[in-house]
């Protein structure tokens, strides 16, 4: 089964509101997490990452929160804009120290922005 998942396949928010996209993971050994944004017809684009020794990391209008106790990851987007409309994926890495690092992806949440 999949070790990373998202709670909601679709999230609809009003333009200007804050968006919160959630992700649960089951592998407690995972030590690195990434959020990707995928717009229609394009490949996923990196948004922000966080390592397991951190609880919070902020970027431009985005914040990622990591709660290792309950194995929960969230992406917060401030003042959502029409250009934020996309599918958002969380991904986890369990680095065993060797070779390439393949990520395990969640199924994705489609963020819809209402005018």
């Amino acid at each position, binding site marked *: 089964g*999949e070790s990373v998942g998202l709670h909601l396949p679709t999230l609809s928010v009003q333009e200007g509101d804050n968006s919160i996209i959630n992700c649960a993971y089951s592998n407690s050994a995972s*030590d*690195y997490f*990434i959020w*990707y944004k995928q717009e229609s*017809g*394009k*490949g*996923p*684009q*990196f948004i922000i*990452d966080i*390592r397991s020794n951190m609880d919070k990391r902020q970027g431009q209008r985005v914040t990622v929160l990591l709660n290792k106790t309950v194995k929960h990851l969230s992406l917060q987007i401030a003042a959502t804009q029409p250009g934020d409309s996309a599918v958002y*994926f969380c*991904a986890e*890495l369990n*680095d065993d120290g060797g*070779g*390439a*690092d*393949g*990520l*395990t*992806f*969640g*199924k*994705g949440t489609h963020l819809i922005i209402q005018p």
Partner: protein
Amino acid sequence: DVKVTQSSRYLVKRTGEKVFLECVQDMDHENMFWYRQDPGLGLRLIYFSYDVKMKEKGDIPEGYSVSREKKERFSLILESASTNQTSMYLCASSKHLSTEPTDTQYFGPGTRLTVL
């Protein structure tokens, strides 16, 4: 900026055909990956490579093979295409640093393959 390119955006093949999907990256990355993306299933890793001529199976390698003859190029091969291989195929690359868990994976635009 990192650039990952894929040879085709759209491809239509018939059952039983041999299919080649090409991926090229221009940032001298060691690692390259092939994923497929299906509705409701997210991104699933098919194969990855951490060096020239090296390859490792991902989560769903059955029905696929790969080739990495040059560092910048990673090819995905469907020896005999089947209808259940109709999907969006995404290539990615990253630079593996021994002192860091990983570097970000950069994705290509994807190839939408339809097998009739």
